[in-house]
């Protein structure tokens, strides 16, 4: 790890820290900075402000931090393993699976549960486990196919098809469901980092930490896979095992973030490209940490943008992420000639 590499990591860590602090100091309720500081230092302040900072803003910032990292790392791994610049967690159908699970729970239970508000505790847990089961089910299908199908492109197409099937089942469910259920499902679908309370935070962060840990273990084989599967196998990589580990890891990261935050678009697809553009490298030893940091940073930034209207309300997350993600993707496609990371 040379000096240039450390510089990237130090810089992006600094930016993420600033954005994180920003998320603590700004919100739809305006609280003076000095008061926020006192609250964070454990001082005495208005109990309502205390509640907002510690029970709402802090978990929300942490959620954005972890969810952004999780989605970005899933995207990076999928792009490398499928050797495809347009792969992402949503392409593989994992988040469609999670959505299907959520839709089943919400539409079956009617309007009794609120995904983002977390009105009824038991309903909320049902949503989370629904998302998880849905994501894992799709993942199981993909892993099953990966035993039979050798080609990564074919596997990618199967992922896309499974995603479509899940979406159409969701549409059918929506058609037959009660309006209340459809409404709360729609709210969940808008994406939100505020759905994880302080009590559920350890589970959420724990799952994502495990996923990121597996990803770190895959750095070396991911580098070898840049040469394609046959070269990687010749370098001593057990390709099939790595592929299954990668699918498990991606599934875990995507399922956790989708279950708790809704299907957040574009971060998984765009952030790895931003990381490559910034570092000018495909070496995962540098790319993975930078992707984690940029993922967190972008998620925190989107969270801040959502809070801009102040007292009037909160912008849905999925209305903001494409504004940042889509231009990146367009830039990458237009500049294929200049940026030949996949060539």
């Amino acid at each position: 790890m040379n000096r240039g590499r450390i510089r990237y990591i130090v810089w992006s860590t600094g930016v993420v820290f600033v954005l994180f602090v920003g998320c603590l100091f700004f919100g739809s309720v305006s609280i003076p900075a000095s008061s926020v500081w006192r609250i964070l230092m454990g001082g005495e302040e208005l109990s309502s402000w205390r509640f907002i900072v510690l029970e709402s803003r802090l978990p929300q910032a942490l959620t954005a931090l972890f969810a952004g990292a999780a989605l970005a790392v899933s995207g990076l791994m999928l792009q490398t393993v499928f050797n495809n610049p347009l792969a992402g967690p949503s392409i593989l159908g994992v988040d469609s699976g999670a959505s299907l699970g959520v839709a089943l729970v919400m539409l079956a239970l009617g309007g009794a549960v609120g995904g983002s508000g977390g009105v009824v505790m038991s309903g909320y847990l049902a949503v989370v486990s629904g998302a998880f089961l849905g994501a894992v089910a799709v993942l199981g299908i993909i892993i099953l196919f990966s035993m039979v199908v050798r080609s990564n492109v074919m596997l990618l197409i199967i992922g896309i098809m499974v995603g479509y099937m899940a979406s159409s089942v969701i549409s059918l469910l929506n058609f037959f469901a009660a309006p209340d259920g459809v409404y709360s499902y729609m709210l969940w679908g808008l994406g939100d980092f505020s759905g994880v309370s302080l009590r559920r935070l350890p589970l959420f962060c724990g799952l994502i930490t495990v996923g990121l840990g597996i990803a770190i273990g895959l750095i070396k084989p991911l580098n070898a896979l840049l040469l394609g599967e046959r070269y990687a196998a010749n370098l001593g990589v057990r390709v099939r095992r790595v592929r299954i580990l990668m699918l498990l890891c991606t599934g875990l990261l995507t399922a956790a973030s989708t279950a708790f935050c809704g299907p957040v678009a574009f971060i998984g697809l765009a952030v790895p490209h931003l990381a490559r553009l910034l570092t000018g490298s495909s070496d995962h030893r540098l790319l993975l940490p930078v992707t984690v940091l940029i993922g967190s940073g972008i998620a925190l930034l989107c969270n801040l943008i959502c809070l801009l209207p102040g007292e009037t309300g909160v912008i849905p997350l999925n209305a903001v992420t494409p504004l940042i993600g889509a231009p990146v993707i367009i830039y990458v496609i237009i500049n294929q000639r200049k940026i030949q990371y996949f060539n």
Partner: protein
Amino acid sequence: MDETAVIRGEELAIGYRLGRRGTAVVHDGLSFTLPRGELTCLLGPNGAGKSTLLKTLSGGEQPLSGNLLLNGRPSETYSVSERSRVLGVVLTDKTYAGGLRVRELVALGRHPYTGFFGRLDRDDYRIVGDAMEAVGVREKAEDYVAELSDGERQKVMIAKALAQQCPVILLDEPTAFLDVVSRIEMMNLLHRLVRDEGKSVLLSTHDIDQALLLADRLWLLSKEYGMCCGTTEDLVLDGTLNRFFGRRNVTFDVASGMFRFTSPEGRQIKIDAEDRSSVHWAENALLRNGFQPVYDREQGDGPILRILGTKEIELEWPGKEMVRCSSFGDWIRKIKEYETDEKS
């Protein structure tokens, strides 16, 4: 046990397993040896099973039956990581490493030896540097792989295989996408690795000319004749090469070492010349135009081409006056003229 063979196949059947539907056999009963410290070329027409054979040798496919020995030990007993230290490959597969620098890509060859994160120590850096030096891409070390030409990329992949420090290197058509000069360079490079570094190299190629010049041994593979191995010159002189690749109108000319058009029904023209290169190029011109060069005519009289010098050629054609030509172009035009006269 033959100590000089790094790879030995005994009654090997190669092909693909199709799950429950059984197997697709590409070849069976193949027996061969890859000698240590030599350059061997695998030649065969398209669809002969060269790629399948290379895949089987590199462990990508399991043999359907028979024995495959790598350094005297059954190939299937090697673990993936053990094999990665014995056998390096250079493929025609598309890679996605455009965002790596040349140095980083060559360093991937150290994978079998490095730890959890693939961190290189001082020895690794030296080996990577030497590998780049050996193939002549040292000055490109900091360039992105995406910026390289096809030939340079191929060299970088060979440097990767060198950094892997395998005694055996298998290459699948390493000259396929290269221009003529790069091809010759590439083959010379490979032969230098064999001589200087003592590697055992097997490469598949369609470039028979280069293979004949530089291969110590040939492996010939075809659907009809199976497999035949031997020293290059032996296979040329005993007619095996012609048997494998010859067609009705294309035969291997042992004297020139080239494949040539032949037209067995073409008009015979006797060449009468002393100079070797004159004979060669006169033959070349005659064959190209559908004539048959001969040196002794058994019966009757036919056309005779008497080459006294490159600018002094006499052409005798039955029923025509003898003409003197001052260039090859002249007499070639003349015999074509006479031929059309006779036909009409």
